């Protein structure tokens, strides 16, 4: 009897350790999922227009947070350019804690896949979006509700196997 119980406890313990170790503790599930995008009032990069939440389309779109100082963003940018070419989903950027000059120069070098960029110089919008590791990408629906968050670089695998199926699912709900 005691032996049995000890074995059960042992198995439970090991499986808890296994689950604990196999999930990436650096990836924090965003509490913002299924919440509306936060309000903001910020300039648009490469223009003098001041933007708030109403500039976002009444359509499903990707909101990508990037910066010219973010080395990983260079790797991601190739996929973002591909996303633009495929035209399956709209792409809007948030330029996070950057300088205007650097950001514009960076887009000239690596291409500009964004319809436009919100210029979040002080990172306040970043805080409201719970950003802690650039690049991060939000999938936002036509009601401006956040449906998914992708922390880190979006690669082809994530784009084709996670983002596109999620978009199809959201569109089916409409």
């Amino acid at each position, binding site marked *: *009897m*005691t032996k049995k*119980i*000890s074995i059960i*406890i042992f198995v439970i313990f090991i499986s808890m350790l296994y689950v604990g170790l196999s999930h990436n503790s650096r990836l*924090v*599930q*965003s*509490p*913002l999922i299924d919440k509306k995008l936060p309000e903001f009032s910020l300039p648009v990069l490469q223009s003098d227009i001041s933007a708030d939440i109403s500039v976002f389309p009444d359509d499903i779109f990707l909101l990508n947070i990037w910066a010219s100082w973010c080395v990983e963003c260079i790797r991601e940018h190739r996929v973002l350019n591909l996303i633009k070419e495929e035209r399956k989903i709209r792409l809007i950027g948030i330029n996070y*804690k950057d300088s205007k000059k650097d950001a514009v120069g960076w887009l000239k070098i690596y291409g500009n896949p964004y319809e436009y960029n919100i210029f979040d110089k*002080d*990172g306040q919008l*970043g*805080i*409201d*979006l*719970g950003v*802690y*590791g650039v690049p991060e990408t939000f999938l936002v629906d036509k009601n401006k509700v956040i449906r998914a968050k992708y922390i880190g670089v979006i690669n082809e695998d994530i784009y084709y196997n996670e983002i596109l199926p999620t978009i199809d699912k959201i569109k089916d709900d409409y």
Partner: protein
Amino acid sequence: MSSLLIILPTNTHGDNIKNEKLYNKVITELRCMVCQNQNIAESEAPLAVDLRKKVKKMIDNGKDEDYIKKYMSDRYSDFILYDPPFRSQNALLWIGPFIFLLILTFILFRKNISK
């Protein structure tokens, strides 16, 4: 650390000390999301610096500790709190040790009886 204290607001003296205490308390209880087990008081990571500024601003605007912690966990999840509240997802962590103790007592008790 000491350089942080200087940037605190200069209202009345009493308020100042109270706010300073609150500020120092809150920033030691918020996790730096991008560091390995450091709070935002200890870290010089850009995000930690930004969050310290945000905490200071909210205290200047008269927000209390609960408001600030809720503000942070609403955005960064409970992971940012060093003292996370009891929820269904972490219930096992809170009550697990007591369950373990109970089971152990039960086993040892039975063992003694059967002897």
